[in-house]
């Protein structure tokens, strides 16, 4: 039972490590304890709104 549990824990840790590998670099770039922007910029609310308005527009045009 213990061996199986350890195998499963190792698999979970591998996936967590993989995701941390994705998540940590943007933090390193921006720094902790302060705001900032990652290399890929987040879209502003206005830009997102515009994008979705256009999305539906394109669909209705088709």
């Amino acid at each position, binding site marked *: *039972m213990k061996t199986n549990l350890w195998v*499963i824990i190792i698999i*979970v840790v591998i*996936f*967590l490590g993989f995701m941390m590998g*994705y998540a940590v*670099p*943007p933090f390193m770039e921006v720094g902790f*304890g302060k705001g900032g922007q990652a290399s890929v910029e987040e879209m502003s609310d206005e830009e997102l709104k515009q994008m979705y308005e256009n999305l539906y527009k394109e669909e209705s045009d088709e």
Partner: protein
Amino acid sequence: MEIEVPRKNKLWALGIVAFFVIISVGTFAAHEYYVYLQAYLWFGFIYGMCLQYGRFCFASAFRDLFAVGVPRMAVGIMIATILFGFTSAFVNATGWSTFHPAPTSIHAAIAGLIFGVGMVFAGGCASGSLYKSGEGNGVAMLVVLSISVTQSSFVDIGGWFNKLVPKSWAASAATKGLPDTINVSDGWVDQYLAGYVWDQPVLRVAELMGMKTDSISGAFLGNLLTGVGLPAMLILLWVYYVWVKRNYKKKVVQEKGVFTFGDHFRGFWSMITASKRTSIAGLFLGVACGLQMFVIEGLRMKFGVKNAGTILERLGYDFGLSAKGTVFDPGYWYVTTQEAQWVGWLMQKLGWNNMDNIFFGWVNGIPNPAFNPADWMSVALIGGAAVMALLHGEFKWKAPTKELAIWALIGGALMGIGSRLALGCNVGGFFVRAANGDPSGWLFGIGMIGGAFIGVKFFNWWTERKMAKEMAAFDL
């Protein structure tokens, strides 16, 4: 002593893990955006393992406390809340927490009260029912179904129920500038949210004390020490004073003949350490919850998004996105909202137009459950619990009896209503909020404890009445 687990159990456990591995690898091969959904999946899996290991159930905790005076689980939950508070404080201090505080007012306590009664009736809280489903418990599965269906229906009720909306709520809701597609004047919950809840203050303890949450002093002194440690310690002292002190004092007096002030500390400490298994589970839950916030925020920066709706749209799955292009994407552990979503999606497919309400149409959407990040978390949570149960020889299919099924449906319905009124359940409405120094979490918690007390008293009365009837019939 090592438990002898059948080979079949081990194979099933490894099979479940293999299934999640294949899903993760396969979807990553399709597109790297799926890493975002995988983060939900693997954290859900960890939550399931921890919940099952610690038998972490709020309903059991307060039922045991009020019905038989056993405080172990309730103490474990408070310890877990403090431990989660530590990891949350770290994440909050970095300024990259995904946590959003909820509006604070009496509605949270009322919702908690309804939820608390429901969880005692059902025999499991929202998260407890999920992990027990992973153990093969049919009653818990019915509870999950009842919570899901009730929430999905409750958020869309209108018609006659509009008459129950106070005029002030209707007037306030109309000023919120919601689009016509939402039709805010039709729907009790819509007007409750836009006309009442959104007008309540959204604060954390640090901000109440004039500190910033994303500063070290605000995160640790404001939110953790004052917002988490203090109320949790008050509850622990209350539990010690009411349920532990008397028996402990009796034991010490029998052994030493005298009870000193220092014995209170030793008694209090023995109460804390008695709930070792729940506390260990709580420690891992706390670390995982904090880590999930960190990972999700990192992935949002990496992919340049604010919400998973953008990722789903980029992947070509734009069905069921809200009018703002969003889906439910809390960035941390949540249970009930995604349960409402999958039923909402199904209802919509069956012809129920439920995208004209705030809950689905404006905020959370109803994405296909196969691509809903929060649903990945819940499914994996059940899987994680099943793996632990299988490896500990605790997995067993249990069909509900007729009586238990009725209680499960009633309790689940009450929990569904309570969850939607509070915008969260015992996890999203209490555990996460309380650990992040959100006063609305503690209000929900106080209501939930009160509700559990009422539920236990009602059950005692019901059982005694039933037994009296049976005894009377026996006498005849």
